[in-house]
């Protein structure tokens, strides 16, 4: 069994070192990369703990989505304006590390003196293997016992989506209004063609201009002479 312990130490060591990198790195992007490394190692530890589905979910959700989003935001927020780690506040840093050490000591004491143990659960490895594997077991448990929580989670995610949409909607660039609301082509040679306010008295006959179906729903007006000036149905649509 020693090999497993070795692997665990390797993975845990990298995970902790990478986690320390998150806190210590000056550049937030380096922090994010460290975090990814930490998460992937933790995912590998999940596999050791017979939680394959969780391992994959960890990689997909945390590294594949959340950290990618963080990087996205980091890139939108420009680098040179980000506050530096070593920018003063030494007191708080000292207090932070001190608190951390104290807490670590406490937790270590708690773990080492732990005597309380709960009752064994109903999913020993044999039972999990009997239903087909970790995923199948989680599925069974999730969609029977935890039906209500999972629906609540779905609601939570929905609410989060709506909230994010509300938060992140950028102030739209002032929409340029469609200036043209008239129904004309203009002819530079036609006395009425350059003066849009005059009502159209007479329209050219069908022989004068031919409308040519061009592509899809578009037509092209085929002008035969320079004076031609035709009614057009298209102007007045608002852009986009």
């Amino acid at each position, binding site marked *: 069994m020693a090999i497993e312990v070795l692997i665990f130490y390797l993975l845990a060591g990298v995970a902790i070192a990478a986690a320390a990198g998150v806190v210590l790195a000056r550049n937030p*992007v380096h922090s994010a*990369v460290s975090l990814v490394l930490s998460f992937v190692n933790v995912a590998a530890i999940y596999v050791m703990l017979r939680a*394959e*589905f969780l391992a*994959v979910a960890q990689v997909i959700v945390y590294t594949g989505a959340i950290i*990618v*989003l963080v990087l*996205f935001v980091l890139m939108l927020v420009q680098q040179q304006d980000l506050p530096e780690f070593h920018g003063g506040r030494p007191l708080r840093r000292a207090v932070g590390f001190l608190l951390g050490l104290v807490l670590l000591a406490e937790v270590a004491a708690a773990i080492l003196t732990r005597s309380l143990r709960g009752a064994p659960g109903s999913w020993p490895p044999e039972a999990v293997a009997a239903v087909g594997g970790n*995923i*199948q077991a989680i599925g069974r448990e999730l969609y029977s016992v935890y039906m209500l929580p999972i629906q609540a989670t779905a609601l939570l995610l929905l609410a989060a989506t709506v909230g994010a949409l509300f938060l992140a909607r950028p102030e739209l660039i002032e929409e340029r209004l469609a200036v043209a609301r008239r129904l004309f082509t203009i002819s530079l040679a036609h006395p009425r063609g350059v003066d849009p306010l005059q009502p159209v008295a007479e329209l050219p006959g069908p022989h004068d201009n031919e409308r040519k179906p061009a592509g899809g729903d578009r037509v092209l007006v085929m002008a035969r002479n320079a004076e031609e000036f035709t009614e057009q149905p298209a102007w007045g649509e608002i852009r986009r």
Partner: protein
Amino acid sequence: MDWEPLIVSYLFGFVLLNVLLLAMAYMTWLERRLVAFFQDRIGPNRTGPFGLLQPIADAVKLISKEDIVPANADRLVFLVAPLLSFVLAPLGALVVPFGDAVTVFGRQVNLYVIDINVAALYFLAVGSMGVYGIILGGYASGNRYSLLGALRSTAQVISYELVLGLSLVGIFILTGSLSLVDILRVQQRTLVLGGLELPNWFLLSQPLAFVLFLIAAVAETNRAPFDLPEAETELIAGYFTEYSGFRFSFYFLAEYINMIVVSLIAATLFLGGIDGPFVDGVWWLAVKAFIFLFFYVWLRATLPRFRYDQLMGLAWKVLLPLALINIGVTGLVRLWGIGAL
């Protein structure tokens, strides 16, 4: 501890990696020849017979070029990002079953590297990790075009990852397993429809999911018409604008290996993988993967490029609802099939 299967797996993985690299090299040759054919050109035909040695010449050229690091690049990340991209690309192929167990030197050897019960999710996870190479490369170049390419890639991959995953849920419902080996076994059965004997390929039972998977896979691998992160005419080359020499070639390798891996997975999931008429075998998988690769090249030669907002709109407004509908319908049919409805 039993070391033998582990060593066999490593050996098989090693062989697989080399096959993938070789396939990738000839994929570049094939793509150039095919696009040339589509475009009324000849394509590379000078290096060796039919230009078959062209990939080697390309590799030698790329390796011998100078490796330039821009002055205002984030040096460490800049150097690591292409490697990340390249290392993660072939990992997806580890779960593809290349056939049933064969006997080599009196030992049973499975023709896949690993069979894990989360194989399909593993493929998605590796795919979602692959984007880091692009994001970090684009960020670290210190170039605004690269940064925009990285931003585009981020949004694109997150959106299409979702569609890619949801399009597979129908298959999971039908097979009750996420293991590609199990999914393949289900497809190797025969489906009798009326008097017609059909292979039980999921292409037939999940056609909508197949189309969705195909679109999402093209977007996921950043190929035309979804090649926004590297759009030459807009962002010059997007995230790898600043890369040169062999670091550039890592991105190049990663893109083509990704294409091959996605084609293999698609062939396994929807077209029955190694299943085929006459004799089952890895050649059928190769033929099917080739069809996908041809499709990739065909798309590239034909279609214009989407715009960023149109791309996102397509994913969220069209593909995602369709994927959800597909899941709903499949679930209902399955319940009806086992009499639970």
